[in-house]
């Protein structure tokens, strides 16, 4: 097992290197640069700015500078926020995005699974239809609709929650963003769980354990659930990587200082170092979560082994 993990980490290095290289050059294909704006800069001033960030040097040199910085764990200065390094921006924003995303995913997994199991056990009965209806609604209503509705209902109407803001991480400020992030995930998890549970309950080994006279509880929890969990785990890995790196919609509507906004804003602002920073961060998380998923397979499914 340990050997397997080590091997995976070693293969991750060339993967990351490729991602960084391709992104670096691809990003520069986009027209315009970080210092193009409505008020055009005087050429002298623009040259001063470009010199400061080595943008006046050949692209290959810039790439080598970047690689060198990256190897030292330095993601470089942000062009558009010159007082912050990309490391600082992530150090401030990432914990916030992780908190919100992880909470939302955890809640979605727990409640979504419970809903899915309940629906599967009462297949084609009213509880099942209720779950399917909720799941369909949850996954089709976009978060840019859900978020303002939550603000209107619980912020302005009932005054239970603040409309927006992070409030230095107060519990009450997290409710709206977490709900918005959770609902679509909850819907997807519930549907996945319902489907895989139904399939699992129909399988031969469940028929066998039933024939052995095990209680319903033991059949469902100890045997059916194990098999049913596999699709959920496969889904949860990439979903976790996406959720904890933040959501631009949730962050802009609720005015949350996370990192989700950087993925879009950095690209639009041609903030090259910040773009690269987001690429590196999301690549690392994706690689990490894929590894965790593969390891969990071995835990849940006795047929999988890495030794």
């Amino acid at each position: 097992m340990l050997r397997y993990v080590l091997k995976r980490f070693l293969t991750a290095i060339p993967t990351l290197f490729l991602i960084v290289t391709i992104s670096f050059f691809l990003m520069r294909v986009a027209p315009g640069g970080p210092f193009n704006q409505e008020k055009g800069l005087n050429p002298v001033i623009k040259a001063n700015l470009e010199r400061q960030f080595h943008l006046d040097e050949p692209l290959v040199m810039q790439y080598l500078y970047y690689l060198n910085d990256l190897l030292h764990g330095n993601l470089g200065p942000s062009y558009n926020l010159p007082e912050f390094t990309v490391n600082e921006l992530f150090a401030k924003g990432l914990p916030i995005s992780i908190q919100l995303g992880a909470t939302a995913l955890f809640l979605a997994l727990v409640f979504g699974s419970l809903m899915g199991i309940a629906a599967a056990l009462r297949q084609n009965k009213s509880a099942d239809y209720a779950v399917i209806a909720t799941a369909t609604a949850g996954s089709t209503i976009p978060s840019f609709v859900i978020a303002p509705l939550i603000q209107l209902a619980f912020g302005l109407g009932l005054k239970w929650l603040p409309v927006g803001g992070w409030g230095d991480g107060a519990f009450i400020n997290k409710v709206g963003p977490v709900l918005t992030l959770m609902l679509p995930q909850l819907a997807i998890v519930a549907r996945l769980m319902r489907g895989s549970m139904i399939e699992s309950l129909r399988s031969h080994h469940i028929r066998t354990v039933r024939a052995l006279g095990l209680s319903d509880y033991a059949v469902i929890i100890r045997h059916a659930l194990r098999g049913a969990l596999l699709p959920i785990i496969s889904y949860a890995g990439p979903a976790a990587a996406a959720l904890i790196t933040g959501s631009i919609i949730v962050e802009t509507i609720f005015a949350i200082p996370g990192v989700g906004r950087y993925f879009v804003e950095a690209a639009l602002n041609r903030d090259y170092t910040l773009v690269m920073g987001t690429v590196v961060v999301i690549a690392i998380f994706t690689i990490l979560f894929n590894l965790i998923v593969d390891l969990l397979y071995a835990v849940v499914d006795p047929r999988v082994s890495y030794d």
Partner: protein
Amino acid sequence: MKIQTGLKSWLVGCTMLVMTASGAFAEVVYNRGSSADPESLDPHKTSTTYEADLLRDIFMGLVVQDAKAELIPGAAESWTVSADGTVYTFKLRAGATWSNGDPVTAGDFVFAFQRLQDPATAAEYASMLYPVKNAEAINQGKAKPEEIGAKAIDDMTLEVTLNAPTPYFLEMLTHQATYPVHRATVEKFGNEWTKPGNIVSNGAYTLAEFVPNDHIKLVKNPKFYDAANVQIDTVNFIPNEDRSAAIKRYEAGELDTHDDMPTEQLADIKAKFGDQVHIGPYLGTYYYTFKTDKSPWDNVNIRRAVSMAIDREFIAEKVWGNSMIPSYSMVPPGITGYETSTFDYAEMSQIDREDAAKKLLTEAGYGPDKPLKMEIRYNTSENHKNTAVAIQEQLKPLGVEVTLLNTDTKTHYGHLEQKGDFDIARAGWIADYKDPETFLGISRKASANNYAQYVSAEFEGLMDKAAAAGGNSGERMKLLSQAEAVLMRDHGQIPLLYYSYHNLVSAKIKGFEDNVMNVHPTRFIRKE
């Protein structure tokens, strides 16, 4: 019973305590909504109006703006100008200090001016001090920072020498790029000097917290010379990118003011908030620009025909919900002493304009057999798109075939700056200082912002003459107005709309005076 009495007296005690606290020591907190975060708090690295709002509270330049954006003495108590208009002598405010207690000296300004021009600083707004002798040469790396035309005669006297009389120099000194910086702090902390805890400033407020995309907390500076009259103790600048969500936060009382609103919902917002909605003309122009060095746009009559056929009133009302004002001149109204020169058809009815436009196009040889083709380039924004679509529809009856090309902001301005090919493109200009020069200068041959490639000896001549008449304000304004008349006659630029500010101001906030610069220093604001 006993418990109840005990509880009761405890509650009464608490209530009294709270009342005393709120009565005697209530901290006045102003939550100021802003549509964007600052990019930097270093006066020499900033460029946006959001930064200007913040830095105006944290720092104090030689000259500052009052609640109505009129010039009043700032770090300089008084000043004199030499007879030829090129030497300004500022007498600094006696007893004024930095937030750490150090006196604010003329040397601080000299240091700041040198740092602004030093190419190593890479200041975006270095041009704000280009009128100062040697400044531009220093910025180009052709002279040393020490050679700048600013000298500390003594600690309290600053002498600034200009290249030529520059009547708007004092207005320029209200820009944040010209603020002083505390030398010891900058040298000690380098790039980190503006972080809370490090920063030393000389304004009415000091920086307490900065969490990007969340809030910036400023607290009253007890060492500020006029601290006795500063009523807000704490001001939180709160960025909100989503305009609709910001309105909800305002409604919930989380924001006391906000500087933007979804203009497409303007009618509803006005109905809901009444006179809390402040809308008025702002010194900014929304314009289209033809590539005037390319056929057929090098023909002034074709430019004129297209401009005449654009129904600006319709666009202002239907597209922008009257949050913008129809414009027929490059320079917006509101600059004291300046009379704008408009297109000569400004007073004509739209129907007459269209007839005249049709005639011009026919004369130029365009008609049903040979339609005029035009591509509008604009940067991503719902309202820019709707404006372009409206123009497309308005030009259709004239037989002009309009296509639209939308790119993101960086691509758009990158293309224009590199003098790429286009027919007509959108642009905008917001004044950095209150003077017609800022709007007319962008049409000069040498300007990097002259996307139109407009070149006119007559216009250049008048602009030069105006610069030479710097000492004579009346004469200068007249010459600038004549220059604008030439620009409008030539259709060097096609102004469409004037910008307007749109603020939401709670009834609790007093002293938030409307003005064309949309400048609202917190030190003049009260909260009741």
